[in-house]
């Protein structure tokens, strides 16, 4: 994969295959992405969400949101015995941190991929805010649902 010579919002589509690769590499099962939607209003977040703030030609954040059922299944894959909220939130942070690292390598200097942050209460971190229009792509990994969200500043 070579760094993108220039960057447009459409380049952010790379986050979908990066997420797919993460799940596939760890579990052997790739998530299936569904039909995307562009919705007006607050994003619907599951309990656990990892956010990747981005700055550059486009500004905003990319996030992966999923429930505790998906988190517990992934913790099983990782042979992590704990199932408490902190462990689940750490998992959300680890997933998006891995994706963010690969995204930095992909975009190079064209996009600043800031450190990932995670929440475990279906909320957006205080230092991030959501665009009035949210792009979201649902996915299913094994029997569990999640979504990739993109929020860019108009």
């Amino acid at each position, binding site marked *: 994969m070579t760094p993108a010579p220039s960057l*447009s919002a459409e380049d952010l*589509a790379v986050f979908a295959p990066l997420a797919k690769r993460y799940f596939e590499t760890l579990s052997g099962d790739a998530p299936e992405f569904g039909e*995307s939607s562009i*919705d007006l209003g*607050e994003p619907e977040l599951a309990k656990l969400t990892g956010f990747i703030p981005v700055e550059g030609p486009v500004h905003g954040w990319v996030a992966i949101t999923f429930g505790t059922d998906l988190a517990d299944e992934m913790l099983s894959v990782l042979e992590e015995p704990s199932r408490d909220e902190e462990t689940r939130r750490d998992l959300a942070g680890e997933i998006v941190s891995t994706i963010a690292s690969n995204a930095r390598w992909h975009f190079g200097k064209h996009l600043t991929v800031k450190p990932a942050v995670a929440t475990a209460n279906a909320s957006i971190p205080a230092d991030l*805010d*959501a665009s009035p229009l949210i792009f979201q792509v649902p996915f299913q990994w094994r029997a569990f649902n999640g979504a990739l969200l*993109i929020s*860019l500043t108009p």
Partner: protein
Amino acid sequence: MNTSGQETYIQSPDFEHLAEAQSLSEEQWLIAFTLAKPATTDELASACNLSPNATAQAVVELLKCGLIRKRTLTFKEFLAKRNGAQPAVEKTESVVPAIQQPVMEQAAPAQPAAAAEIISIRIGFLPVSQASETPVFITRFGGDRMPGFVATVEEIRPMPVSARAKPKKPSTNSPMKLRPVINAIETKGGGGISGQLLVYRVFLRVPFGSLYDEGITSLKLVDENSMVRNPDLKAAILDAAREVAGVELAA
């Protein structure tokens, strides 16, 4: 182009009644109460010390629960706003280009410069249904001050709109099907998530309040029958499609 930051909002008439049943964030209440007076999202962001995104997001939520509405103008308010913004002659020209131009050409075809000296012209459009009954009067041209200006028109009788000169720009008043527009942008973006992200970027440039007013809260739900009726929204979508995606679509 009209942007979301320029749209004006105000509390709904039944604000107090609706507010009793709502549970909102502090920022949303702050914006809701600030909108006791009309304000744009840019003005709200400044007044409430919030980011443009946070303000826009709060406005969308307040629109959804009916506490606020996009402010519309009465015809009188619209005219008053125009009077305050533009000189009278410019206003007249911009309002009635279709009928004014043929009159000028007929009166002084070889003296185009003289047209700039006309003091005042008042022309009004009438519905076609009234056209055969009611004459439209226009004031005299300043004939003495315009050597070479042969004709002095004091009265014209309106004719059906179809027989008048056509405006140069195509009309943008007819409703526009939205699905073909989205499809064209998606195709330009290469389809898949990449194409859909291009659609996303185009619609980020469209005033979200107007989208909401048209009942468009999710582009996924846009089908073959979804129409855009608001001419300003239609123009904003076409402008954004052209500027962001390089997609030229007919109005």
